[in-house]
């Protein structure tokens, strides 16, 4: 890497670091503002932006070979597919109780259902 390229790249990394910290604080700040479902959307949205910055600038996916990009995309796509299939299963059955919880954890939920 030539000196000029190195300086430009190092500067880019510095800006990316500052942007990541700013986004982290934005994520923290947004969680204290009541926005309903918008809170979860903001938290996840900012996390996606931060992850994209890391993948693009730190992991340099943009300059990677097509096979590398296909491998990365396949991981994400496979997870989306499997999550969608699992979600379809959960969405089409009545609310099950998670057996991993203790009875006292589920008592308020059961009482609520009984009172309906």
């Amino acid at each position, binding site marked *: 890497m030539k*000196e000029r390229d190195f300086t430009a790249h190092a500067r880019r990394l510095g800006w990316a670091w500052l942007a990541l910290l700013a986004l*982290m604080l934005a994520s923290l700040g947004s969680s204290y503002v009541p926005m309903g479902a918008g809170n979860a959307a903001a938290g996840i949205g900012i996390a996606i932006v931060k992850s994209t910055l890391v993948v693009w600038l730190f992991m340099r996916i943009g300059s990677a070979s097509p096979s*590398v990009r296909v491998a990365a995309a396949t*991981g994400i796509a496979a997870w989306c597919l499997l*999550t969608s299939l699992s*979600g379809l299963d959960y969405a089409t059955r009545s609310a099950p109780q998670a057996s991993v919880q203790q009875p006292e954890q589920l*008592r*308020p939920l059961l009482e609520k259902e009984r009172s309906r």
Partner: protein
Amino acid sequence: MSAHAATGGSVPAPTPDAGRFGMWIFLATEVLFFGGLLTAYAYGRIQWPDGFGVASRHTDVLLGTLNTGVLLTSSAVVALAVACAESTSHRRWTGWLLYAAAALGLAFLGIKGLEYAQDWHEGLFPGPAFELAGTAGAELFYMLYYLMTALHALHLAIGVATLTVFGAGCRRGRPWANAHRIDIAALYWHFVDIVWIVLYPLLYLVNRHA
């Protein structure tokens, strides 16, 4: 007789990108590994939004945010170390930068340990003495919290060891600690950083405004 000799020297040498490709394949499997837990989390949060909110408010958001900053900084330091390794005039800094990133990783683990100790004293460990026993979904949240953060910490510890070995290799001028291999090790570190970026809002920032 080697495979190369057996084929009359016609075996092609691996392409320079083969190492990166291999690491990305591994990272794709890691996406599915952590992805399964994220799916379980999504299911729990949709089923018990109030319980997950109450449980999340009991996590230490200050330490969680501090740890996020530490890990983001370590990732930037590793990216700079790779740039130095690829530059003839800055190569001497590579080892020190890798050591610095490993030290930040250790700091993360120390802060996480402190947080676990706090959680333990506050009765937030799933079991008979669980503090939030009357809140449906809270214990499920903490089971996923410990599982996800402990698995992340294990990955981070492996990353710290890897960076330390490469840092030492660079400082001693070992030929195996070259820019290409450091770049591949860096990919793993950045992935561990991304996992935490995703975990941070899911574990620490749920219903903070309530």
